[in-house]
């Protein structure tokens, strides 16, 4: 899958899994921080993202420290998915 297609798919999945009712997937910028001042996600959302990676891409994250490097923004998530996906 091309990088841009995967990005759009991931954004749509984030909106769906996190029920971001007022966010359009296309509004999420590739380099916008997912947590804090960007999309404003919190710790429960982090767990939802771990579930998303497991269910959609077959990636299991067992080390919480690993999550800090992956969930920075869409770019870092897509890089990680491309390297580790099993689905």
């Amino acid at each position: 899958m091309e990088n841009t297609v995967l990005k759009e798919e991931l954004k749509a999945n984030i909106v769906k899994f996190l029920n971001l009712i007022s966010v359009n997937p296309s509004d999420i910028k590739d380099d916008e921080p997912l947590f804090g001042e960007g999309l404003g996600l919190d710790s429960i959302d982090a767990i939802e993202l771990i579930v998303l990676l497991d269910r959609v891409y077959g990636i299991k994250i067992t080390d919480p420290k690993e999550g800090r490097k992956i969930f920075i923004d869409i770019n870092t998530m897509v890089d990680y998915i491309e390297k580790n996906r099993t689905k």
Partner: protein
Amino acid sequence: MLYIHKASCISPQNTFNNVDLSILMPSFENMLRAIEPGYEGIPPGQLRRMGKAVRLGVGAALPLLKDSPQLAGIILGTANGGMEDCIKFLNQIIDYDEGTLTPTNFVQSTTNAIASQIAFMSGNKGYNITHVHRGLSFENALQDAMMHAIEDPTKTYLLGGVDEISDYNFNIDFLLGCFKEKFTSNDALFNANTPGTIAGEGAAMFLVGGQKENSLACMHALSVLTSTDERELKESFAEFIYSNNINLEEVDVFISGENGDRRQDNFNTEIELAMPPEIGIVRYKHLTGEYPSASAFSLWLACHLAQGNTAPAHMVKKVGAKKTCRNILVYNCYQGLQHSFMHVTS
């Protein structure tokens, strides 16, 4: 005595903000779903995680908490709480072989999620309890609040009843025969003469306490019964009237929990026959549908009528002899087993 100072209701009818019961909102496929407001007071980040029961409960409670005294506690009744999220979570356990599960569905699925969310949002660290006794959930919450008001009349509590329609639960209850087999419009509910009723949902919230000043209404007496026996119901009603010194000649209106289920008409008839003929009868289950804590709506309705509002023609089963509506008897029956009587005055 428990005095009701404020009341709020989200239901399938226009009961929130501008109350208008004259227009009957229609049912769809034997369900009456709540008209959800915009929930302006709930931050979007929290709203997106809330299941419907939590939204209804929090949405109905927040307007009451504005400019109100510090709550001594939150006392709710809900039979099922966030049932939709609960079943989603249980299904995920199976679908994903007890693997990685989403926390949100789990958090929303517990019955006490509503009371805890209200406490969290209002910063209340007082008494917080959720009663979950099926069709008597709200009555148990009410009993709890009445006991607290006796203990310390100066304190104020949030009291409420909430339940949602869950598609999963609707199907289970349908198989049990709780709902009508053929689609029946709510405006024809009482003429259907068939088994079963239609499903409903809603949240009714009250600010209550032991002080009379500026109250909307007074909860004078409450009694519950679990029985399938008409004779026992009749005796229990007589005992309720006698032990609480209720003069039936002074009662203005009877609010009946009749729900269009032919198999439960005998209970309602039994109570109606026990009252003087000049008492007016008002019905409401065609507004709300049937749900375990629907009696919370009946208390909201009693408060509404006690404030001088009149019931529109579609709610009136029998026109009463009295013009006033300050002395109200309420009867509810859930699934032909759980019964409650309330006496409300203003």
